[in-house]
């Protein structure tokens, strides 16, 4: 984990289509929220991208870098108090596992969708 103790993986399931769903819990007391933002803790979008990458790393058992992000949409605000638990669904192309797509959701809300390319570190 790049940013130590930022979140914890609470559950991991592999779906019949080969995709993975990770359930993560955010650490509301993390130092990141002292600076993003003072008086208004909001989970930085790049930190949710980092969580996606670390779930892909776990799924593929490799250390990875996003070499390309074709599109990443942030569709709802993640806050450590308002959305402390998130589901991260990651799918890797069966023919080319460097092609990754991911969705972060909880209940009816989609927080982020991402499609990109990873390379091994």
């Amino acid at each position, binding site marked *: 984990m*790049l940013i130590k103790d930022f979140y914890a993986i609470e559950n991991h399931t592999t779906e019949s289509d080969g995709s993975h769903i990770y359930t993560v819990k955010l650490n509301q007391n993390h130092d990141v929220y002292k*600076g993003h933002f003072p008086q208004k803790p909001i989970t930085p979008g790049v930190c949710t991208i980092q969580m996606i990458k670390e779930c892909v790393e776990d799924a593929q058992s490799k250390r990875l*870098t996003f070499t390309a*992000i074709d599109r*990443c*949409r942030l569709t709802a605000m993640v806050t450590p108090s308002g959305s402390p638990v998130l589901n991260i669904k990651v799918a890797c192309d069966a023919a080319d596992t460097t092609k990754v797509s991911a969705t972060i959701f909880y209940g009816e809300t989609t927080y982020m969708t991402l499609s990109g390319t990873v390379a091994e570190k």
Partner: protein
Amino acid sequence: MAKTVLYAGDGIKTFIPQREPMLMVDKLFSVSENDVETGLTVADSNIFVEDGVLSETGLIEHIAQSAATFAGYNDWINKRPIVLGYIAEIKKFALQSALPKTGDNIETYMTVVSQAMNITLMNAESKVNGVTVAVCKMKIFMDK
């Protein structure tokens, strides 16, 4: 030749609401109504640094805060309040050379592609020692 720095270090805090440990711009070289040029020296203490290398997510945050610096400066110069800005969308991010290392000076140039209501779309290019590290397009939502 060293570039002229308009604002550096704590001077950047006039324009953006991010604070340590999430402050990812430490220099403002130039700014207008249409473009901005910022910098960041990668410190070993940066929370996006691991094994002496800045993560691509840290680089993206630097680009996002460069856009925030652009918006914040233009609000400040026009005597408007500085508001929180969020990434709405990242498109066509491409890493073109090795990620910055501790001690590297990142320089980022961004230009406005379009602006509508509270959404600004900007083009970004980040370089280290004149070599392009990454490019992307970023949509920023300003919470006005």
